[in-house]
């Protein structure tokens, strides 16, 4: 039944629902408090899990005495790391030899490598009792000196984070494109700067949750979790548990936000599976916020040493950078963030000479993992910040310098030096439109007025780009032994015997509105109203189709998910028409599907969809001879990806959505506190299936990126303790801290996707980078420059004081 297909551009007549601002179907259960999240699951006999964690960043575990913990009333069992690992194989990683020997079980055995690393699993009759027992565990540690920065981890003689590999630099590569040395030699201007990309995290409001019930009778693990791509993680989980993957039954119900981090809770799935099997009862673990902050997955932290070469007239000639990535203690998805620069290394610009020297360094900190615009906004920051500094040095307006360097819409599709093929777009139109929407001249006037009042104020501009989804052949550049390539998604559409329409996709949405969008797509193809389509919620591996790439990550739904369901619906439609044609004795070409009926355009009558369904499922003798019964199609959509061009080039994403952002930043010189007074953005997501939802995604990225620029910072002390472990200290902004957003969009359909859509919603960093650029603009009158992605009031106040000599 299931076939693999590649689609080409869709030409649908009577498009109605796709493209409309259709309010979401899933809202009804959420606004009434009826959302079903993993922590809402109730199973008889449920036991509760708390995880004991290392207080030290680096230490040897000399012994764990669990006798007192076992005496706590209500305790069911206590499993040390050693006991858990006895039933596990290590989690796979992407690193080439010898660094593939970095052992990761998701729980420490004889050594802890970051503060917060799990060391034992405690099961009890209530969460309260489980935490009582965690407190009674006696662990004998021998503290070791930790490695806390990428730079110090590179030093000779640095303590080893993983003692079984030769250095902490677990992956290093220099990528060179064009003639970098030559352009830097002959350039009219070279600007160099060290930048810090600070550590922050998307911190979805719902922490990680895992519930596992081991069904001994069928030898099945039933796993409810908020993992955002269980089908993707299935292989790694099965391998670690030493079982066949088809013994894992995953359910991801409603997910309370993910942003990438919820790819990363699979080690907990494994720990709970072991515990459930050992005690013979279902177990549930609900992460606390503090645990989420210290031990889930942080965004990347980078020290850049960058330089950019320019010609006198403002053309970018080349970029050269060293990037030291602090990866944290384990390499779960890494070094993908460090490597992700390659997806759109040159952003929206035409320069061809590029050298990126990447160091991926393990440290005794929380592991780095996917976080909205993973590894992509970081490259944007490097390019846009250097470009801004160059413009200032050359005395060229920041708008003008961008216009001079943009890839033009006539050059599309455009192949960048790293082999990315930009899928269309009009960068200068996007920039001009945001300037127009914001009334740029008035904005500058407002900045000057603020300055005249003694405030510091700056206007900042930035482009952002997000390459999505992932062509997994890019892994071959990290590790030549990797055999993956491309990506795919599965969907099915079914019309049952009563004419009810259902659809399911393998993605696991986290607030993206897939039920609505799927309904819109199917409704158009089958000529019904979206309310007549039941799109299955969440993800259940027994009811939803999937492929090893399934899930919601890397902004892939509008490309892979939408295309798969679109094709499945088209195939069902084809069959409906064929059966109707047979019944009406009419040619398929003369039939149309609209308002729930198949109608002959030549006046040969009509058949209700319901009647076609009855024929297809029940009245089989009345079907055409060669027609299989049923109205059901299961499609695996293959995103059209190729292998890498060579060892450092390839098209590793299909679409390249982009945005242009302008920010007016006001800084109180007396306190160093910044506030975004106005912010506008124009994004091109290609064709928008649901502009209401796309706009919501843009708002969301704005909240995250302004939050990251102004409020959110993960800070460790000199012993490797995270000092921002709760929402008291990790400053996720409130509504009062953020402005309203002036959003707009342009639509240049993607050249390569069936629906002309682009992956969007991650943001590519434009708002954050625009804030950093605005800060430089604000500090310009004082003659100082800013060097971090985090606008720290403390640092800014210091700069103001040093500049004014006060």
């Amino acid at each position, binding site marked *: 039944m299931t076939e693999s297909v590649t689609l080409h551009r869709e030409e649908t007549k009577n498009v109605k629902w796709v493209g409309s601002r259709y309010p979401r179907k899933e809202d009804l259960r959420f606004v009434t408090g009826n959302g079903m999240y993993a922590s809402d699951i109730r199973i008889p006999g449920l036991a509760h899990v708390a995880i004991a964690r*290392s*207080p030290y960043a680096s230490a040897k575990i000399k012994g764990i005495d669990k006798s007192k913990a076992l005496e706590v009333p209500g305790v069911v069992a206590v499993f040390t790391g050693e006991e858990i690992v006895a039933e596990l194989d290590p989690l796979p990683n992407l690193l080439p030899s010898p660094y593939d020997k970095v052992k990761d079980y998701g729980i420490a055995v004889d050594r802890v490598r970051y503060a917060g690393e799990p060391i034992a699993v405690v099961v009890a009759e209530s969460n309260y009792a489980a935490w009582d027992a965690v407190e009674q565990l006696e662990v004998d540690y021998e503290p070791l000196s930790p490695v806390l920065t990428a730079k110090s981890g590179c030093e000779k003689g640095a303590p080893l984070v993983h003692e079984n590999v030769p250095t902490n630099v677990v992956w290093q590569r220099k990528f060179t494109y064009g003639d970098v040395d030559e352009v830097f030699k002959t350039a009219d201007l070279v600007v160099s700067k060290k930048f810090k990309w600070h550590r922050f995290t998307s911190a979805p409001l719902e922490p990680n949750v895992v519930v596992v019930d081991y069904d001994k009778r069928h030898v099945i693990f039933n796993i409810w979790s908020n993992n955002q791509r269980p089908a993707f993680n299935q292989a790694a989980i099965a391998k670690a548990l030493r079982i066949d993957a088809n013994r894992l039954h995953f359910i991801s119900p409603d997910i309370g936000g993910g942003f990438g981090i919820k790819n990363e809770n699979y080690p907990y799935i494994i720990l709970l599976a072991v515990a459930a099997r050992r005690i013979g009862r279902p177990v549930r673990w609900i992460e606390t916020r503090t645990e989420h902050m210290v031990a889930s997955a942080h965004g990347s932290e980078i020290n850049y040493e960058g330089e950019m070469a320019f010609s006198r007239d403002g053309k970018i000639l080349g970029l050269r950078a060293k990037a030291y990535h602090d990866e944290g203690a384990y390499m779960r998805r890494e070094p993908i963030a460090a490597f992700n620069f390659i997806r759109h290394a040159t952003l929206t610009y035409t320069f061809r000479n590029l050298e990126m020297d990447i160091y991926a360094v393990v440290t005794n900190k929380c592991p780095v993992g996917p976080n909205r615009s993973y590894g992509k906004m970081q490259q944007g920051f490097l390019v846009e910040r250097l470009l801004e500094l160059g413009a200032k040095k050359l005395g060229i307006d920041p708008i003008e310098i961008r216009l001079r360097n943009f890839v033009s819409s006539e050059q599309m599709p455009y192949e960048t030096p790293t082999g990315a093929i930009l899928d269309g777009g009009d960068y200068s139109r996007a920039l001009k439109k945001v300037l127009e929407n914001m009334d740029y001249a008035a904005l500058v006037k407002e900045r000057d007025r603020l300055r005249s009042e003694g405030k510091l104020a700056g206007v900042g501009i930035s482009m952002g780009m997000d390459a999505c989804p992932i062509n997994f052949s890019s892994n071959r550049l990290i590790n030549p032994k990797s055999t993956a390539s491309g990506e795919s998604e599965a969907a099915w559409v079914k019309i049952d015997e009563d004419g009810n329409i259902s659809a399911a996709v393998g993605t696991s949405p986290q607030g993206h509105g897939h039920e609505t969008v799927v309904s819109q797509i199917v409704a158009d193809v089958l000529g019904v109203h979206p309310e007549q389509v039941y799109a299955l919620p969440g993800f259940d591996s027994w009811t939803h189709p999937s492929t090893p790439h399934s899930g919601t990550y890397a902004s892939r739904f509008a490309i892979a998910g939408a295309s798969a369901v679109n094709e499945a619906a088209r195939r069902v439609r084809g069959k409906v028409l064929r059966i109707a044609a047979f019944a009406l004795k009419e040619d398929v070409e003369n039939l149309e599907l609209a308002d729930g009926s198949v109608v002959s355009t030549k006046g040969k009558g009509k058949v209700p969809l319901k009647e076609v369904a009855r024929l297809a499922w029940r009245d089989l003798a009345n079907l055409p001879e060669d027609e299989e019964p049923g109205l059901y199609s299961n499609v695996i959509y293959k995103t059209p990806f190729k292998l890498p061009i060579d060892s450092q080039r390839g098209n590793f994403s299909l679409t390249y959505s982009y945005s242009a952002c302008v920010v007016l930043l006001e800084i109180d010189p007396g306190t160093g506190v910044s506030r975004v007074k106005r912010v506008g953005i124009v994004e091109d997501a290609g064709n928008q299936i649901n502009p209401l939802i796309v706009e919501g995604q843009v708002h969301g990225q704005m909240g995250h990126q302004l939050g990251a620029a102004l409020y959110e910072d993960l800070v460790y*002390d000199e*012993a490797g*303790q995270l*000092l*921002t*472990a709760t929402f*008291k*200290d990790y400053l996720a902004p409130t509504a009062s801290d953020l402005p309203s957003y002036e959003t707009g969009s342009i639509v240049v359909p993607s050249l390569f996707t069936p629906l002309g859509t682009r992956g969007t919603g991650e943001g590519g960093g434009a708002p954050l980078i625009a804030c950093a650029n605005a800060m430089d603009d604000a500090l310009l009158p004082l003659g100082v420059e800013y060097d971090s992605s985090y606008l720290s009031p403390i640092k800014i106040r210091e700069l103001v004081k040093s500049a004014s000599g006060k």
Partner: protein
Amino acid sequence: MDIEGSFVLQGSPERVYGYLVDPGFIGDHLADVENVEVIDNDNFNVRAKVGIGFMKGKVDFKFHFDEKVAPKSGKLVGNGTGLGSKVDVTILFTLADGGESTTIGWKSHASLSGKIASIAGGALQSVVKKNTQRFIESIKQGIDAELSAAGAAAGRS
């Protein structure tokens, strides 16, 4: 966190040293102590309430003397567990003979690990600093009192 300082006591290094490496004496002068259990000359356990104001919790410390070089130096190492956290302290004393008096130099290194280090943005680090200072002041006064009591007793005899 590292802090250091020095103070002067009227008495010979030999006499001062005796107090500095006496588990019972030291245990009694640690801040907010609830209970001291002396195991031998080098080892003692202490249960203390650590914190500020009403925000206090029990921490169980294991202390031992490391590197005793009479009457020149001594190192006290303590590892505490409590409040879901670890408190590790090291205090090194060095004694300099000043004839009638002894100058006691001290260097302490303290670290908080786990929950209490992570909560309140590192603000609780200041507690450790305060407690160290209180401890030093307390042993200073304690030894001083003992020395003058002994001196007075000696004077009486």
